[in-house]
């Protein structure tokens, strides 16, 4: 039987959740025995080459690129996991959600803040750049998410225990000490 396939991605996140995944230490060797990785920043595979069993999503949906990637993950993965606070509730990027508008947000970031030097008052407008959304969305408000692993970052033990449970066809039963929102 072929090994289960895992894909991961970081949307509007800081990559801390991926770092925490690596923080499982030497169990990473067991993980490589247990699963194959497809599209993921860990192996730098940029596009899906086959259907995957588990998709791990870090970060919320802040722009059109995040939206596209998340939709693609839902299409290609049997199980999707929201990993970390940003994926679950928007996290730090979602602190802009309480602001008046995207315009005021961009102004503050690129023109008005005390530390900004922007003589020509340029706003990022290259067509290569994805469009910013009206607010940052938690992943489950965009696609169906099957499991949620909270934390900032989620504890390495939590990620490990959850993956092992899923790979063995069991429900995730997190330990109290590893189940934290910070």
């Amino acid at each position, binding site marked *: 039987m072929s090994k289960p396939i895992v894909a991961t991605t970081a949307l509007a996140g800081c990559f801390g959740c991926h770092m925490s995944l690596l923080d499982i230490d030497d169990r990473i060797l067991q993980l490589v025995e247990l699963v194959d990785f497809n599209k993921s920043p860990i192996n730098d595979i940029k596009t899906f080459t086959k259907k995957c069993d588990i998709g791990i999503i870090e970060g919320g949906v802040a722009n059109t690129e995040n939206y596209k990637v998340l939709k693609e993950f839902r299409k290609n993965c049997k199980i999707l996991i*929201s990993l970390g*606070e940003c994926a*679950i*509730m*928007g*996290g*730090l990027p*979602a*602190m802009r*959600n*309480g602001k008046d508008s995207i315009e005021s947000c961009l102004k503050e970031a690129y023109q008005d803040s005390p530390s900004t030097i922007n003589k020509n008052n340029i706003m990022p407008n290259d067509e290569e750049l994805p469009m910013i959304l009206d*607010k940052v969305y*938690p992943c*489950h*408000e965009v696609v169906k*998410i099957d*499991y*949620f*692993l*909270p934390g*900032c970052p989620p504890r390495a033990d939590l990620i490990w225990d959850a993956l092992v449970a899923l790979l063995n066809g069991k429900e995730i039963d*997190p330990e*109290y*000490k590893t*189940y*934290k*929102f*910070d």
Partner: protein
Amino acid sequence: MKDKFKIIIDGKELPARHGQTILEIANNNGIYIPTLCNFEGLKPQASCRICSVKVNGRPMTACTTTVSPGMEIENDTPEMNELRKIIVETMFVTGNHFCPSCEKSGNCELQALAYRFKMDVPRFPYSFSKRDIDASNPKIMIDHNRCIKCKRCARGIKTDDGKDLFAFKNRGEKIEISIDNELAKNISDEKAQEAMDICPVGAIIKKERGFIDPIGTRKYDNKPIGSKVKEVQ
């Protein structure tokens, strides 16, 4: 009327006296009923509803309901715990509770209740409500994003000469705590800490304190909220 009688909580017969609340009896007997707006020493006000129990089939708040003979109370049941989880979830989506940026994280009662009821994600959409931070006071910062409007601060914190430090303004969903800046300017560090401690969430933060407790040593890092009640037994 006979003064002493028995009531039943989750099938267990417990001694009771007139005038006691359900919560008092539970606490005396090592039974945990979750509370949030309630604080020892303050008059209970039953605004958060987290202590709801079923009294003879009807939901009532344990902190304000006084006992009477013949009461049969359901507390630690899947139905009541689900109801409590829903209340916690509504609080998480009403305000903006971004735990990683909060100095109260780990010592926060709302967060601890979410852990206890194994909340992974609220079933309701986040409101991302627009709220402000008031950091104008030199001793205390108020973050309205995190306030759950339990009024514990307004009810419990007074200056040494008995004046209220906090009050509530506006009504309904616009209700907001406010601080008497004149009075609060001169409070001691202990008083500021007392204000921070009476707040069940991180809406009142003592300034120049920061994240002083390392992760792993905070109040609810290793044991769920309510563990102490069971130890009393």
